[in-house]
């Protein structure tokens, strides 16, 4: 009666998780698959993120370097122009005061000066014959129109001839004399080249560092995703106890791993429970099935005696009925656990439900020598399903009758009570039977759990499972306590607010 779908349902989440996580799982790495491997790497979020960051990084580094280069080159150029302007102003003053001869004199004097300051002076006649200055002739290729000009000069330093770039200004003095003031800019050019080289190298360094960092970052991220994937694959492959390793850093990956592990814990718990149930179902149904078969066989052998045959068939039907009852109980537990009945919740008087159940069981209890007491101080309202709650209470009374000892005086007392315990509706069923040892108090809620291994007491071992399922459905809890001696089952529910 338990559908295959119902049994398989808990597997579904694992499969879907695995399907989702499989996105980036590298499954096959042969060389032939390199292209698809590259595509897959490109597909990974980590890689794309790293690539994007790298591109932004490169662009900003290039921007910074270009800015540095441009400002320093500009600065050097301005400096040259300012120097030239100052010289020309000075010479113009001399010329204004002393005429051509004074100009020649000062140019000659300055030309003798500090060779390190790289200034160039030249005064020539109209046709270019030098009169004074530190150039022997008009520089080749230099224009003879007034204004700024660029040219080259030949120098002789340490016995080596060299061509240096220079910038200058040509001024034509009245009478056609020409004055050239310039500056050797090879130092500036060298400085600019140095800056350029430094920038190129630091740019390259930044690129390499960025690439390495990006690769490292994406690899690190990928590795952690891989860990999750590999764990998921192993879980899908059947190793349910595998978990994603945690780093203890508490970062997003740790949180993700923690959540996945929590999910796996839950799945494992469910699966273990399911396996136990299946094992127990198999065990608990095999015995009655074997009995059923034996009875039917006997009926067949009985042959001639119709009375014996009838009895055997009746016994077989009873056996089948008991098995059906077990199946029905299993199904209702499953339904309650799945939340059936939640939408039917209505305000109910818990004391009334217990009173009715007690009244139903009272004659039976009396017949078996028990005294069933019900104490209720007042109306206690909860929200819930009458039928399920009645069934839970009936199961508890049933258990008390089954395990208690009715013929033993005070031990035959079964006490039911309902009261409002600090805002919670409390329902207690207490007997003076053998009780349940503390170590067993959790396991008795499992399906088919019965204390004595022989399972000789009638009953299917599903009663308390249903009680707990019903309690949980109603947002409540069930607790087993010592009744000293005996067992006290305590159920707590939220009290219905505003219900009267």
């Amino acid at each position, binding site marked *: 009666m338990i559908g295959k779908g119902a049994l398989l349902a808990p597997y579904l989440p694992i499969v879907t998780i695995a399907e989702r996580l499989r996105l980036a799982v590298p499954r096959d790495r042969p060389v032939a698959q390199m292209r698809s491997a590259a595509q897959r790497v490109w597909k990974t979020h980590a890689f794309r993120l790293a690539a994007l960051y790298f591109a932004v990084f490169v662009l900003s580094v290039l921007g910074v370097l270009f800015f540095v280069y441009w400002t320093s080159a500009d600065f050097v150029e301005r400096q040259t122009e300012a120097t030239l302007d100052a010289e020309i102003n000075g010479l113009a003053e001399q010329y204004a005061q002393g005429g051509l001869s004074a100009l020649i004199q000062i140019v000659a004097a300055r030309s003798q000066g500090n060779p390190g300051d790289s200034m160039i002076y030249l005064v020539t006649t109209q046709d270019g014959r030098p009169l004074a200055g530190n150039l022997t002739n008009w520089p080749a290729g230099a224009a003879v129109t007034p204004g700024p000009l660029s040219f080259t000069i030949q120098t002789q330093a340490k016995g080596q001839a060299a061509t240096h770039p220079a910038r200058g200004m040509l001024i034509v003095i009245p009478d056609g004399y020409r004055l050239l003031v310039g500056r050797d800019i090879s130092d500036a050019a060298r400085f600019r080249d140095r800056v350029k080289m430094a920038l190129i190298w630091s740019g390259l360094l930044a690129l390499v560092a960025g690439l390495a960092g990006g690769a490292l970052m994406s690899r690190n991220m990928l590795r952690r995703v891989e860990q999750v994937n590999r764990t998921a694959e192993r879980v899908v492959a059947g190793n349910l106890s595998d978990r994603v390793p945690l780093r203890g850093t508490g970062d997003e990956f740790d949180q993700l791993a923690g959540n996945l592990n929590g999910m796996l814990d839950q799945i494992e718990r469910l699966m273990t429970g399911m396996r136990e149930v299946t094992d127990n179902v198999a065990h608990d149904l095999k015995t009655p099935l074997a009995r059923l078969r034996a009875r039917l066989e006997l009926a067949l052998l009985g042959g001639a005696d119709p009375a014996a045959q009838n009895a055997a068939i009746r016994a077989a039907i009873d056996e089948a009925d008991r098995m059906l009852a077990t199946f029905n109980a299993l199904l*209702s537990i499953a339904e309650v656990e799945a939340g059936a009945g939640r939408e039917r919740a209505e305000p109910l008087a818990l004391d009334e439900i217990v009173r009715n159940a007690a009244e139903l069981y009272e004659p039976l209890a009396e017949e078996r020598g028990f005294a069933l007491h019900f104490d209720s101080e007042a109306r206690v309202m909860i929200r819930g399903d009458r*039928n399920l709650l009645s069934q839970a209470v009936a199961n508890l009374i049933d258990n008390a009758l089954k395990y208690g000892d009715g013929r033993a005086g005070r031990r035959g007392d079964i006490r039911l009570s309902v009261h409002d315990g600090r805002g919670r509706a409390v329902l207690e069923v207490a007997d003076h039977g053998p009780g349940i040892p503390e170590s067993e108090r959790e396991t008795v809620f499992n399906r088919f759990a019965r204390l004595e291994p022989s399972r000789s007491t009638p009953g299917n071992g599903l009663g308390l499972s249903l009680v707990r399922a019903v309690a949980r459905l109603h947002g409540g809890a069930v607790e087993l306590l010592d009744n000293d001696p005996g067992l006290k089952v305590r159920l707590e529910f939220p009290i219905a607010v505003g219900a009267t």
Partner: protein
Amino acid sequence: MKLLVVEDDRETAAYLAKGLGESGYAVDQASDGREGLFLATGGGYDAIILDRMLPGIDGLSLLGALRAADIRTPALILSALGSVDDRVKGLRAGGDDYLVKPFAFSELLARIEALLRRGQTPTATTRLHVSDLEMDLLTRSVKRGGRSIELLPREFQLLECLMRNAGHVVTRTMLLETVWDYHFDPQTNVIDVHVSRLRQKIDKGFDRPLLHTVRGAGYSLRAPDSVLLQPE
């Protein structure tokens, strides 16, 4: 009495037809919803036994269509779906009773008989009689042979249910549903003790018992000398 069985599972249908036939009913069968609706609309049935999950038109829709057409033939829904929700849905759709598969045949039979009688006994009646046992529903008193019998409220309800179905089998499940409104099977048979207490009160001191246990089925309250009624 003519019954219509709408059931797609051939084995169940054959089992029902055989059992009901042997119990004295004339049985027609339909194996899908459409055929069932066709036959049921044709009328002439005293009750319909209806499976919920059917090919063609499902049981609840079939019932809805019948009730919409103002056909009030009593219907018992048979279903593997046994939760209270399912039961409520079935009864809302127009079912008169709901029996969860698998079921004992005696249970089905008792319920069908109760359904068939439901139309006959006027509910407005204030007095019930079985032989020398009398029940007054207004004063809520019970007498046998002129002697007054004190009953607890539940015992009164129990006896009322048995008296309304006098001469027929009432199963333990029917009693649990009618008297206690419990739609589940308690693990232990609690009903028997209630019935034996009731029996103490109504039969003790009288030569001929009225309340009988029907083995493997339930109980029956009937006049001495009478036999368990079977459908004609």
